[in-house]
């Protein structure tokens, strides 16, 4: 029976933000089931039923490729991110969780990179709750230049 425990959901979201804010992308990936789908999608697309996402990763393999891309190939100014993840509204195996992500280019002032809501399907596993699918739907269609790390 897939009844989500609210504390377990809090915990995985805390781990999620922590992993990304430490740039530990392997730890981020490990929070997903191997065949999980991750998207970062502008709300204007989500609300209109348009399928395009800024990031669309279908399974651990594509997540690995994205991580390699970020860590080994992309050119970008050094930055910090801070995920502020809110309380989840849980319904069966689904959850809606609001977020704000603040980005600080290391030589500049903090700015809001994205604000939105995670649309999740979560699963209980023997290792705890894992993400079966997450769509980080961001309200601000306009990204301040670049979206380097997953939301």
């Amino acid at each position, binding site marked *: 029976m897939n009844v989500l425990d609210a504390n377990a959901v809090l915990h995985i979201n805390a781990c999620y933000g922590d992993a990304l804010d430490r740039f530990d992308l392997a730890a981020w990936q490990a929070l997903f089931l191997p065949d999980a789908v991750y998207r*970062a999608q*502008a709300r*204007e*697309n989500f609300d*209109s039923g*348009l*399928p*395009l*996402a*800024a*990031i*669309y*990763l*279908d*399974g*651990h*393999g*594509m997540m*690995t*490729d*994205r991580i*390699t*891309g970020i860590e*080994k*190939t*992309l*050119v*970008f*100014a050094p930055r910090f991110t801070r995920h502020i993840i809110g309380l989840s509204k849980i319904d069966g195996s689904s959850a809606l969780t609001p977020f704000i992500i603040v980005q600080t280019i290391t030589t500049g002032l903090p700015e809001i990179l994205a604000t939105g809501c995670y649309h999740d399907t979560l699963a209980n596993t023997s290792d705890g709750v894992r993400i079966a699918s997450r769509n980080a739907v961001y309200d601000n*269609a*306009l*990204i*301040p*230049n*670049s*979206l*380097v790390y997953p939301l």
Partner: protein
Amino acid sequence: MNQRIEWSPVKSPSPFKQDGTHRIPNRVYSDVELHARELEAFFYKAHWCYVALECEIPNQGDYKATMIGERPVIVVRDRDGSVNVLENRCAHKGAKFCQKEFGNAKVFVCPYHQWGYRLNGDLAGVPMKNGVAGQGGMGADFKMEDHGLNRLKVRVHNGIVFASFDDDIEPFESFVSAELMPFFNRTFDGRALTLLGYNRQRIRGNWKLMQENIKDPYHPGLLHVFFVTFGLWRADQKSELRIDPRGRHAQMISTRNSGGENKEVTAGVTSFKESMILEDPRLMDVVQEPWWGGPTAVMQTIFPSVIVQQQVNSLSTRQIIPRGPNEFDFVWTHFGFADDTPEMTERRLKQANLFGPAGLVSLDDGEVIEYCQQAATAYPDGECVVELGGKDGGVASPHMVTETLIRGMYRYYRETLGL
């Protein structure tokens, strides 16, 4: 048409220090007065500017609010199926009356005093026009037909929509040029398009730096390590550069996997990493499409407003919306064709990982544009060196080891602005 008051700035001397365009003065990226002249000369006169794909507004009354230069406009499908482009500026007090980016309307009504307009911009209603109880109202000389919305010239070309504020603009085909129409029509050949969605980014750099970026075949193999490593781009792959006679538009046409094993391409390139293999090949599951007719990538710059992208199975328009000299918005509209199979749509969506603000081969472009802008602002008297491939003023080329397309754009820039 409404009358427009032309702004005639006091012209400062040319920032170019010598003939030719192999040196670009930093001032063209940061000077407020030059920027105002660029808007007037390039976005508001004599140029067809991109506004939409027809598939964004399929039904009667569907509209999209967008920008030409720094002016807001509305693209709307009229009752007879035609496409109108109207200035998003009430003829009364100038309010930007439409605040929604997309919608459906029978009429446009400005919320301020409820002046109402038909979908062709004609003024249809003015509250209290004839006064109230015999008092007030518009004078006898107020004519409804004098106060419509400014309606632009429109060209719908095989599903893509361009507009111009300039009544005297040349035909679209001669604007794009005979040299470039064949590859323009290769993507837009009349097939119905389907809309896949949008990506938007705000880049703190001058808008021309993005035009330059897509006229610059020097950088992809150097900056975009992802590209090179996974075989999407080699400087020695079969390629061709086309440019219109005036130097403003261009096409970079290339065919992947056609290059030799020329070691000069990778020797000494610090960003080259030989050993990377995709963990999941579906990220770049390229399938040849019949309409390509050979080339696997055609990147087109239609000056000043848009880039048309075909990178293997990923298709998009990238609209450039300036916001002063130091910043622009970059709007990506991804599309496919109505006869795409579900598998092809899925492929286009997966390959879209390479593009947009999170793009594995485009995120870096926005970043380096900001690095250039920072220096342009800090060193207004500095210059950029644009001498790869010579000092010509923009010519077609059978190879990519040249910055000729950028020189061509600035030849046109100097001529048009009289600099």
